């Protein structure tokens, strides 16, 4: 029996795509969804399943990628897809992985590695579903990937603020007014860092941005190949909620990376590795000023110079003071030691 258990723990071996010309040509999430013009989250869905391939089950918690994609008896999905409740992407991933394993063990379906991917938005994942995701990441015997597509608000219900909405942004819940210019004064949660730091047996956590499509797909492939529960956080520019011309979706993603606001990294078996443009920043390339990013978005149109400066100082803090720059907000150990010595 032990052998059978081991067998169903096997994963598909998905080699990274070596260049854009070698990417799978088939679409497994196709046209005919009802997302906004320039929707990066729809692009994330497309790339995610393109990377995963046809032997994949996708589970989606409520959000734009549920409501906009599968209204009234229609679907753009080629692979099997199921809706799950707003906060339950973690439970759905675990349950599906466990169910498949059980069916294969009992011989009720052919034993083969099947990818299980559950996606959630920032509201469903970082606010409501964080407990279930955390629980799933401790179940190391079940292979699943939880992909959080982060458009920085509850975009489906017309832009309410979430735990991943950036500081000061204009949302339905935080309209700038004459008396209070900034209603939302909390800094964005560090979701990927938190998942990596908090789940020592989760073998793979990564951040991605679909503006870098091939790298993004390769992180998905790595997560599915390595086995066990894995987590990916994707930053998705949202023309509706961020208020910019949809043509700029790709550029917004690039700017978020180049300003250092959203770092690209993977944490494999506890080892942090920066990649792409973020690696260049770590290696000394200057970060672009965040104002280049902020002033192109209507949601920050009320920012004063003072607000822009504060935003920049918080990003500088991520890079200069965090123990692992832009990944984990603990202060450097030597600084802690120095502080203890003073006492």
């Amino acid at each position, binding site marked *: 029996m032990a052998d059978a258990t081991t067998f169903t723990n096997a994963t598909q071996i998905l080699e990274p795509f070596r260049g*854009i010309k070698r*990417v799978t*040509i*088939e*679409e*497994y*999430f*196709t*046209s*005919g*969804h*009802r*997302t*906004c*013009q*320039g*929707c*990066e989250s*729809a*692009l994330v869905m*497309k*790339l995610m399943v393109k990377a995963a391939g*046809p032997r994949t089950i996708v589970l989606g918690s409520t959000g*734009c990628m549920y*409501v*906009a994609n599968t*209204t*009234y*008896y*229609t*679907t*753009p*999905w*080629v*692979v*099997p897809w199921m809706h799950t409740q707003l906060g339950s992407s973690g439970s759905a991933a675990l349950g599906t992985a466990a169910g498949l394993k059980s069916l294969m063990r009992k011989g009720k379906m052919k034993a083969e590695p099947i990818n299980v991917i559950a996606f959630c938005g920032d509201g469903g994942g970082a606010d409501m579903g964080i407990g279930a995701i955390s629980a799933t990441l401790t179940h190391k015997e079940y292979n699943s990937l939880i992909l959080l597509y982060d458009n920085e608000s509850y975009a*489906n*219900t*017309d*832009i309410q603020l979430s735990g991943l909405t950036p500081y000061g942004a*204009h949302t339905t819940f935080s309209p700038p007014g004459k008396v209070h210019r900034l209603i939302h004064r909390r800094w964005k949660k560090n979701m990927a860092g938190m998942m990596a730091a908090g789940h020592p047996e989760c073998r793979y956590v990564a951040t991605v941005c679909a503006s870098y*499509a*091939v790298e993004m797909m390769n992180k998905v492939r790595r997560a599915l190949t390595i086995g066990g529960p894995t987590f990916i956080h994707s930053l998705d520019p949202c*023309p*509706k909620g961020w*208020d*910019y*011309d*949809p*043509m*700029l*979706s*790709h*550029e917004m993603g690039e700017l978020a990376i180049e300003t250092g606001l959203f770092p690209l990294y993977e944490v494999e078996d506890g080892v942090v590795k920066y990649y792409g443009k973020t690696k260049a920043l770590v290696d000394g390339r200057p970060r672009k000023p965040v104002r280049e990013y902020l*002033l*192109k*978005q*209507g*949601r920050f*149109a009320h920012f004063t110079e003072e607000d822009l400066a504060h935003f920049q100082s918080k990003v500088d803090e991520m890079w200069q003071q965090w123990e692992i720059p832009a990944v984990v907000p603990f202060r450097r150990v030597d600084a802690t030691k120095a502080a203890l010595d003073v006492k």
Partner: protein
Amino acid sequence: MAALIVEVVYRGIFQKNLAARIARGIVLSARKSGRWGIAFGRYGDSPQRNGIPAKDFAIVADTKEELEQNMARYEPKHTDVTIVLDDTLGKGVESWAWYGLQPINKLTVAGGTVLMTSLRSFDDLLKDIHKKDEPYTLALIRAKASFSGLWVYREDHTEVRMLGALARVAPQFLTLDGVCEAIREMEWGSDLKVASARKAFDRLETRPVRITEGNPEVPYSFEMPKWWEMREGVTIPAIPVGKPKEAGKGYVPERNPYFKKYTTRTMRPVIDFDTCVKCNLCWISCPDSCFDVMPDGTFDANMEACCGCGVCEAVCPVEHCITMVNESAFDDNASQWEAWRRDKGAYKTWLVDTIGNKKVTVRSHGFRFRGQYEEELKQDLDAGGVEITAGIPGENAAHKTL
């Protein structure tokens, strides 16, 4: 004893605030004209998506009882006036709650009015607007479509122009003085806006449309599944994986057959297949998977699936290889690649003409940087301002700025 039913058809998100201002303005103008009014949005359009057509309704009645009668409906089945805030909606409306393509004048009653903002000629617009069995009036406010986003509003006076024009179209319900008084009192109103409303009242252009006129095309439609055809657990069949384009080469994905993007676009990409370097960037970056892979390795934007976001132009490394062009410049949804393959010379001529016409390549598409709308509105307020950056500033803006 009568009621005036108005629908406001607009581009989701881009014109959400604009349409809400117009609908509210109608109600307040009704009160100032001694009548009763109510405004509401279409439930089925929520949550809105950028570019996908949506509707608001406003009803004006002589008495409260009549107003209540009309409020008892989920949404009006007939409208006396159809306000259209973007002339590319003349091609029809496919809201995300609807199925199939609805002509823009579908709800307009016989003898009613379709009131539109446009700089195009009546005849040009009637190439797009579907034929109707009953005569109606097409009325035009000479202005560009006003596009902005959820948070930053574009103050180009489109809302008050529409209210002024409506007073001209339906004087038995809204008086010009009532409209002006309402605008003055509105939190977004001003004396300058009152003047704009009066100008629109004076300058409204109208033309009767006969039943023989209009686009003869039969709008795209299909049978909706019946309740007894639905399967256990609300499961539905997945989309098949797609096929090679021809002779085992290329790739055309299967697509959701129930939702086409014919009317979601305000622009579409025009592709120069001769200068394409086959880098794959447009194909991989398209959120709508609209690019079919051709046997020669180039990519053809499929007009069933393109929603006109323009990301392909933004990522294309070759200048003028992909150019976004105003949807109003096109009369069909045919494949550009097939046209290119049939006659490369003729295609090139058409391409150069189309993308060289700055009037059709320039189109406002929302917020690009802070202060943009104010800059654009410094001149030419009557026509809705001049867009200064249809391309990306610092990259490809220059060749698209008038």
